[in-house]
């Protein structure tokens, strides 16, 4: 394992980059010390990990360093919120024997994305892009020496997590929160303008960068409003937003750095048919789907239908929508306890 550069991800980081928020960088930079008390006390410290020889670096937050005897709960982020869960969530897990390990995915504002040649429509559809990202994450799991991992995929990260759960022998249980699977997902997105932007982004190659630019413009203009509208289906999601506003401000900064090709890749994997998900795909995999109630009835119905086809059990959380994973740590703990027999 090769660890280097520690840096915090808080408002201090946001302020550091406000002077030039749109400038992408190749490799995350350590953040200058800040006088912000909340940042200084934030234990969610990121490190850059090199999963192999060479220059590829992955951003990893391990809550907290020195707790290596705890079972890892590995979280991979969705495109709309490339941030770890709240300190409260991490503390709950720690008190129950789990160490939250959050990986900010490649190209999600902190590190360079996949090579552009992989992000063409053809290489997204034939699985080359997603399997490359999965290979890097699998290598990172090994580099971090994580064992008996509980994998928690959030939203658009699930296409990656389906593959990772098959590839990495260190993953003992997979929880796919708010999965899209292969369904008619457009009607589930609110508000209407957000749905239109997403549809435009993945439908045509010449239009995807316009959609990405539109998202970035909205994020820059009023990030809180952007997230408030995006989470409008769920009062619990909006409550999480209100309680963790600094995380969402930081998320907006990372999202503005995401290259259009990476938006195109991630949304295409989530919103188009994923041929990798054959019938009864999860039959022999220790995995569950986690869904919250605060979404449309249509979405829940279609998710249930797909889960039956794929042979994966659904766990219904008591609250939440897109952020169900971060809102319901107790439900995640119950899943892990119930599935402990299946875990290695």
């Amino acid at each position, binding site marked *: 394992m090769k660890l280097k550069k520690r840096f915090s991800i808080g408002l201090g980081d946001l302020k550091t980059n406000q002077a030039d928020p749109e400038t992408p960088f190749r490799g995350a930079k350590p953040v200058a010390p800040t006088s912000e008390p909340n940042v200084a006390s934030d234990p969610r410290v990121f490190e850059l990990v090199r999963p192999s*020889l060479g220059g590829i670096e992955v951003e990893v937050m391990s809550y907290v360093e020195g707790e290596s005897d705890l079972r890892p709960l590995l979280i991979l982020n969705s495109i709309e919120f490339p941030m770890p869960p709240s300190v409260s969530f991490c503390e709950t897990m720690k008190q129950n024997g789990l160490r939250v390990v959050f990986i900010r995915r490649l190209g999600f504002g902190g590190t360079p994305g996949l090579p552009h*040649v992989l992000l063409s429509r053809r290489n997204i559809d034939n699985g080359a892009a997603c399997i490359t990202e999965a290979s*890097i994450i699998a290598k990172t799991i090994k580099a971090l020496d994580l064992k008996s991992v509980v994998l928690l995929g959030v939203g658009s990260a699930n296409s990656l997590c389906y593959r990772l759960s098959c590839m990495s022998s260190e993953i003992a249980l997979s929880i796919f929160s708010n999965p899209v699977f292969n369904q008619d997902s457009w009607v589930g997105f609110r508000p209407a303008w957000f749905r239109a932007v997403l549809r435009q982004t993945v439908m045509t190659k010449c239009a995807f960068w316009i959609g990405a630019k539109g998202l970035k413009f909205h994020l820059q203009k009023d990030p809180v409003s952007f997230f408030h509208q995006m989470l409008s289906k769920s009062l619990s999601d909006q409550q999480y937003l209100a309680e963790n506003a600094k995380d969402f401000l930081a998320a907006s900064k990372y999202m503005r750095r995401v290259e259009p090709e990476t938006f195109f890749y991630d949304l295409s994997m989530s919103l188009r048919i994923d041929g990798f998900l054959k019938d009864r795909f999860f039959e022999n995999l220790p995995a569950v789907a986690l869904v919250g109630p605060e979404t449309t009835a249509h979405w829940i119905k279609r998710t249930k239908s797909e889960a039956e086809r794929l042979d994966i059990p659904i766990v219904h959380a008591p609250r939440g929508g897109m952020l169900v994973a971060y809102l319901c740590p107790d439900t995640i703990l119950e899943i892990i306890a119930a599935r402990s027999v299946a875990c290695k």
Partner: protein
Amino acid sequence: MGDKNKFPAELSHLFGSQDSEQAFITDYLTVLIDTLTVLNSSVHNDQNQAIIQSIENAIRVLLPDEE
């Protein structure tokens, strides 16, 4: 496929010059070939075959054209 540490050097011979973009792609190729090696020696099932196929696709894309 024995010593994975040899891959970067071996692959670097495939490229004319080692600018940063080529080195970046070489790093990815190294990881993919290493992963493929492991998967080829593990249990074969439908999922594994699909993953292997995807990795082979990615390697083909990243390898430079033969000239």
